Every structure is written in C-alpha cells, then in structure tokens.
C-alpha cells in the first residue's frame, strides 16, 4: 500500500537517477559492462519479486492457485499479447483454479 511519504521517497530516488544520468554523468566514464549491470538490475529485482509473489505467502514457501495464473500469464506473454490481456487471463486462471479447488 502506497502512502504520500513513500511516494515522495520513491520519487526522489527515481528522479535523482534520471537527473544524474541526463545532466551530471559523463557517459564516456561509464564502461559498457557496468552500464549493462545497471541496465539489468531491474530484471533481477522484478524476477525476484515475481517469484516471491508466486511461490510464497507471509514469508513461507507455498504453491497455490496463483501458480496457475502466472503459468497462464507466461503463455500470454510468450505469444506477445498486450499487458492488460496477460494480466486479465492470469487473474481469471487464478480465480478458476481457486474455485475448482
């Protein structure tokens, strides 16, 4: 759940990095490899978050109806369907698995 304080704290870091990149950093001083690490950082974080939201609840590993939803979402995403379709199908698959269980 977001609060105003949290929103401003996140905004500070996000804008800070944008401004640093655009107005301060000399791009020639950033090597390709470190640029690549920074570029891949979101992927590492988002993968971790997605895995935790699929296979854990309240700090414990578990597998429930959400696994079906995420499986359906992977099928949609690999077929290049739009994001909102992917999310809707994922929610529907989760709800169906839960209703049938």
């Amino acid at each position: 759940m977001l609060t105003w304080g949290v929103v401003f704290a996140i905004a500070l870091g996000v804008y800070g990095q944008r401004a640093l990149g655009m107005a301060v950093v000399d791009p020639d001083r950033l090597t390709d490899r470190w640029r690549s690490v920074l570029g891949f950082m979101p992927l590492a974080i988002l993968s971790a978050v997605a895995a935790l939201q699929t296979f854990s609840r309240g700090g414990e590993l578990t597998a429930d109806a959400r696994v079906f939803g995420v499986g359906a979402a992977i099928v949609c995403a690999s077929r290049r369907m739009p994001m909102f379709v992917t999310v809707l199908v994922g929610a529907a698959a989760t709800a169906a698995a839960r209703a049938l269980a």
Partner: protein
Amino acid sequence: MPEGTQLTRGEAWTIAFTYFTVAITVSVVHSTAGTEPWVIVGATLIVNSATATLAFAAVQASGGTAVAGVASGWLVSTRFGVMAAALGPRLWPQRWKRALAAFGAFDPNVALAMREEDDSDATRVYVAMSLWLVLPWWVGAIVGVILGEQLGDPQALGLDSMFPTLFVAIIWPQLTSKTAVSITLTGIVIALALVEPTPGGVPVLLAAVAALLALIEPRRATSDEEPHGC
C-alpha cells in the same frame, strides 16, 4: 508531431495506447492492494514510473519493510539513469534544461529520440514524445482507480496474482539474450532460497546481485539487449 523527423503518427498512437492500458492495469493493481485513489494518481504523476511503485507495493505485500520497499523501487529505476546518460549529451548544452527534461525519461521517448541522426531532431522528438505520453499515462491512472474501486473480493477474482502476472508481462519481452535469462533465473533462485531464512524485503534486495552476471557477458551488450519497460 515534429516535422522532418523519423517519428510517425502510427508509432505515437501505438505508444499512447500502450501507456494508457498499462496505466489502467497498474492503477487497478495498486487499488486492490489498498492504496488510496488520490495517492495512486499522485504517484503516477510524481514518481512517473510504474515499475518503481509496483516493486515497492510487491515487496511490502510479501512482508518487507517500507525501507526495503523504497530501496527496491530505486533499484528497479537504475535503467532510467543509464538511458538518460545515453541521450543527455545530445540534448541542450545547458544542464538545467537537461535536468528538467530528465523527469520524463521513459523507455520509448528516449529510444525514439536516439534513433534521430540529427541532435536537434532528437531533442524535438524527445520533448514531443515526453509531453505526448503524459496524457494517456494520467488518464489511464484515473480510469484504473475508478475500475479498481468497483472490484469485489480480490481473492475470489484472482487479483492477488496481478502483481506476478504484471511482472511476467514486463519481464518476458526483456528475455532476449542468454545473459538476461541467466540473470532472471538467478534472481528467482536467490529470492526463493532466502524467503524463509531472512526477513521480508531482504530476498529481493539481495537478488539484485544477479545483475552482476552481466559482467561476465562474453560480448559487448548491444542496444537491442537493453531491457525495456515502464
């Protein structure tokens, strides 16, 4: 539409539609997680990044502290700095103008501006696309909040799977290289291995280490391999 640039009307509309639907989806997810409507709309405007606020909300939902959530929000935004650094020198010489323009640095507007051969065309495309994205982004956020308020029991509707499915939709198009796939798998393994032994939020922050795999990448990263998102 800036005249004489490579930007086409079709591209501009496609991106606007995409941002509109993404903003709706993200707003609905925040809404079902219990965030107040005005905070969602405000966050869309002030943070100007969906992944940052989503990462925060998801970390908090899996038991992380607010500090861990904010740190995750910052870490998923590193790519903005990298993209901005690539475009910055091609925009105005004045730093204050660049610092101002930095607020709107998203993936599509930077990518479309970089495509221009002439620096002044790049600047015009960047400014035009930055302003163009604002409208669908905010209107979508408001529509999403209204929709989210109408939804009933989140569990029965399967809405608790919306965070991970949304992340799947963001991650999948980025898995275009072996490095990207190995970073993703390593991030997942680190997070799941640490979820029980460490406090909430720690698994996500430590999973960031997986990005270091890019250092042992055999060849030089090309722009095609740079991740995309919102």
